[in-house]
């Protein structure tokens, strides 16, 4: 009787210590769901979802405060992917937040630019290069096409240009190969 009680107590103590240690040692920092949602979002950082960036929106989705259909750059595919991840019914993209547009990139008309640096401050991904009173330009590869630089420009020298396919990025059309 005593043997059994002491054995079980010892066992419980050891296992408890082990579990307690593991809980501290292998603690998951942050919410992994937020990372998973953030991975699906397009990282345009455009704020069309009414949040200041993709991660804040991911946090809001994870806490269940908002719907999953507020991201126009992600498109319907993005909404579907989020629905699948969260195990909920998918929704049509909410048109209030804007429409899905083809991928674009900001281009500065360098003759007009006055070097006010307002766009540098507005850009969420630091894609502008410039300094006060000198010409500013865009690192095209880093631009996410979020449009946030457009309203701040006092001389309207930024254009959003659609990215055209090049010889290297060309994707052939297989819809023409329809079967007879």
């Amino acid at each position, binding site marked *: 009787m005593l043997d059994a009680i002491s054995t079980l107590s010892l066992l419980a103590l050891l296992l408890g210590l082990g579990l307690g240690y593991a809980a501290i040692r292998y603690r998951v920092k942050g919410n992994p769901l937020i990372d998973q949602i953030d991975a699906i979002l397009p990282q345009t950082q455009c704020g069309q979802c009414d949040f200041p960036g993709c991660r804040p929106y991911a946090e809001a989705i994870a806490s269940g405060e908002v719907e999953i259909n507020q991201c126009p750059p992600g498109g319907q595919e993005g909404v579907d992917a989020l629905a699948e991840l969260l195990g909920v019914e998918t929704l049509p993209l909410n048109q209030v937040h804007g429409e899905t547009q083809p991928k674009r990139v900001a281009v500065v008309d360098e003759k007009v630019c006055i070097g006010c640096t307002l766009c540098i401050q507005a850009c969420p991904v630091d894609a502008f290069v410039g300094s006060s009173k000198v010409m500013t330009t865009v690192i095209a590869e880093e631009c996410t096409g979020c449009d946030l630089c457009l309203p701040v420009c006092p001389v309207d020298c930024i254009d959003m240009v659609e990215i055209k396919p*090049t*010889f290297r990025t060309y*994707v052939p059309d297989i819809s023409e190969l329809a079967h007879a």
Partner: protein
Amino acid sequence: MLKFKYNGGLKLENPYPVDEIDLIRIPLPDKVVLPMQQRIGNRAIPIVSVGERVLTGQIVATIDDQRCAPVHASISGTVVAIDEHVYAHKSGLKGLCVTIESDGKDEWVDTSIGCTEHYEACTPNTIYNKIRVSGIVGMGGAGFPTHTKVRLAEGCHTLLVNATECEPGITCDAALMQAYPTKVIRGIEVLLHICKAERAIIAIEDDKQDAIAALNKFCNNENITIEVMPTKYTSGAEKLLLKSLLGIEVPTGKFASDVGVLCQNVATVVAMFDAVVENRPLISRAVTVAGSAVKESKNFQVRLGASYDYLLSFVDIVEGSHKISMNGLMMGIELDSTNYSVSKNTNCVFIDQLEESKPIKECIRCGLCNTVCPVDLLPQQLYWYSKSENIDKAIEYNLLDCIECNCCSYVCPSYIPLVDYYQYSKSLYKQQVKEKQQTESARERYEFRELRLERNKRERAEMMEAKKIALKEKMARDKALKATVEAALKRVEAAKSAHGSQDDG
């Protein structure tokens, strides 16, 4: 006969046989259109302007990129335009071209700075550089800059010269070998000198007996062997050549240079000889003009940038509706017109009688494609995955190993253009990879910016706090100082008054 073998492949007859293969030199074209975007790498930047007079062999466009070769004027004359033309590419996209109008003189620029006959005395670096400035790229179709390829293969054990020309109907390499066998052999010696390989193997198919005889006659270097292979389509693919001749299989995503072999097309070897020994940059190439609508197929040595129409004016063409294609019946592409120009990797122009196109039917899962695939893939599976845009699964089934040889489409009884589907999947995959990288980069940059703004805010607050404290301390110090001064003044005052009272006393 071959020691090693590969599965699949096709035995194809030459659809346009000729009695005798000959390389015909044609007069200078009146006008050349030189494309700035070559097969890979960045677009070259024109360094001439409209109205400028250029000489043959002068560099008209260049770019500092290891994957890009400079472009040379192929005739002497005046630059008449630098504008966009539709390229001979599947996409039908437009790209920048330099147009030169000939003055008929063919005046050469001085290219004499080089290695000449005494290339043995030059360091490999000098020769790489000569190859680079001569604008030489792989002329078998891949268009990879030769200087980069040779440099990558430094320290290789074998030099493999690809003279198989396995695409049915193309005979320009055979014509080149028959016309310049010594250039082939000497060119190989130059390559052996710079890449330090112990041996060279010329791989050639047994349907080119005249070329084999010509090479045998002039090959007196014991390090060079001529390997005659049975005629079979896709033998000429670099990886398959390595497999069938050397028994080496190149792993996925690796190149011949990774397994110690340098593989060069025979036309590239000749171009390299011209550049290193004769100081002639790449300004012309051999092109086959053939087809069921061409009365007699011919090979022409033509200046780069000459139009297809100009080439076709030297052959007799049967009237009627034509199908125009370039770079072969199997791996080539179909074109909508002859309004294109010869580029560094144009090896043939075919004009065929237009036949009724065969309707595409459903896949009946016959499995014929699986038996002909030379790289042991499962074309049928890849087709289903590509069609349903299941790219991950297609990649899992080694889609990226597909050499797009079209054997599967050729045998398909349902006439499914399988390779079109694979190309679609491949470009979609490329796009996805790029997008993923961009997304990752945007996330990192956004997070870093947030971090920086946060840090700036904190630093500013800390700075303000520090300033406040400093101000307080200063005020306290000032107060103390003031007090000391006042106290001192008071003492002086007291002393003065004491002194005064003493004086009075």
